[in-house]
């Protein structure tokens, strides 16, 4: 019961950024360029959910609170959800719904190439996130889902690469990611010994 309640809360919490963004866009509170603000915020929340999902395992190891694991898939799927919205805004307002423009951007803009690559890799992870797929893929499932490390690295690179000169904010996310990856490297070295 307690678990179900906290899960419901978590769902609401994950919807809040989107609800806020839609509300703010409707009420002209996203600044002078609401489309850009929407695009950037959706991208940022994609990264935040990715990194939150990756934080679950280390937090569980440190605090021994296994129920946390039950939120991991949910966070990953919300990352995917915000990614789809991020891409939709980009496609409609930046590419004017032109596939030709999309292709040009992917080929010519390295930060978009990197972002697109991360997006494509997240696709199979979202599709194989069900318990059924997990059972069907067996050991390969874990291998496949380790792609999330690469995806997160590419997402952070995408964030750093598109910023003009102020690296303070993107580098904070980079530090979060490096901490998470560092933890895993440390763990695997320890268990090998």
């Amino acid at each position: 019961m307690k678990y179900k309640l906290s899960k419901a809360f978590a769902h609401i919490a994950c919807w809040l950024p989107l609800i806020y963004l839609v509300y703010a866009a409707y009420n002209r509170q996203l600044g002078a360029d609401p489309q850009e603000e929407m695009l950037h915020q959706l991208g940022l929340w994609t990264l935040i959910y990715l990194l939150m999902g990756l934080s679950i395992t280390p937090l569980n190891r440190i605090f021994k609170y296994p129920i946390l694991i039950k939120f991991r898939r949910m966070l990953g799927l919300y990352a995917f959800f915000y990614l789809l919205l991020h891409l939709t805004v980009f496609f409609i307002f930046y590419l004017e719904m032109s596939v030709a423009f999309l292709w040009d951007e992917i080929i010519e803009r390295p930060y978009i190439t990197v972002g697109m690559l991360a997006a494509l890799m997240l696709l199979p992870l979202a599709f194989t996130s069900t318990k059924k797929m997990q059972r069907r893929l067996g050991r390969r499932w874990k291998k496949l889902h380790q792609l999330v490390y690469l995806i997160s690295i590419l997402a952070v690179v995408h964030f750093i690469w598109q910023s003009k000169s102020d690296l303070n904010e993107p580098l904070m996310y980079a530090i979060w990611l490096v901490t998470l990856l560092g933890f895993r490297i440390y763990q695997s070295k320890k268990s090998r010994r």
Partner: protein
Amino acid sequence: MKNRNMQSVYSSIKDNQVTPESVFWDRRKFIKNFALTTVGASALGGTMLQAASSDTSGFSTAEPLSSEYVVTHHNNFYEFSTSKSKPAKMAKDFNPGNDWKVSITGEIEKPGDYTLEDILSWAKIEERIYRLRCVEAWSMVIPWRGFQLSQLINQVRPTSKAKFVEFKTLESRTVFPGQNRGTLGFHVLPWPYKEGLRMDEALNPLSFIATGVYGKDLPGQNGAPLRLVVPWKYGFKSIKSIVSIRFLEQQPQNTWHKNGPREYGFYANVNPNVDHPRWSQARERRITDESFFGVKKIATQMFNGYSDQVAHMYKGMDLVRNF
């Protein structure tokens, strides 16, 4: 700071009544009158718009104005913040007055520290409606108030050695918190912000020093009390809150070029055919108002549509290399 001798199309409208629409229609009337007196009753039989485009000065445009809100709340003014919305809030206490000083030095006959009052006494204040194209591929149409830069230059008498002009923004961590180091200890840009023009560019009739916008004194976030406006170049050339103007024999280095020489040049002329290394410059996002659909993508024009006025200055120059 009060600007006198101002004959503005907005002056009859009270502040709280200024809406983009009313301004727009006032301007339409202006264009109509202009077209009728100069071209006659449009012998070409074209529309008003075509008639207006026969104004070859480039000092006005028939395109819809960007709203006063977006002009004053979407500002790349890194001295305050890298956020575009924050400068409007952070500049509330930045109200430079007549005692603002500009040091004008270098290859001129009359160097010195001039006050804003001195400088304004040299100037013939007028209104200009310019397109502004940011290097980030967004753009606006802005009704500036101010004076032609050449008026200031002629007043201080450049010598034959003066080949370039360098401008500097105020450096002050108390006024501009963005000049402090960021959370992780990085400076956002090397301060103070510097920009430069070739002498012929600075003397081009389009080069303008803005003292106001939308019929009012320039708000802090737009670069009060004096900012450069060079509409055929990317917005970062239009340096804000100027405290120093130096006339030089050698080409000065501008801040963005120093920060990223591969990405930002000295000339920074708007050019749809030369992409920024990380994004396309072929099209731009024209911001008209702050509603969610107030932005439209349009094609970017060579020299931001000011070819007739400026292209001759770059004849024979490789614009790909001199980006």
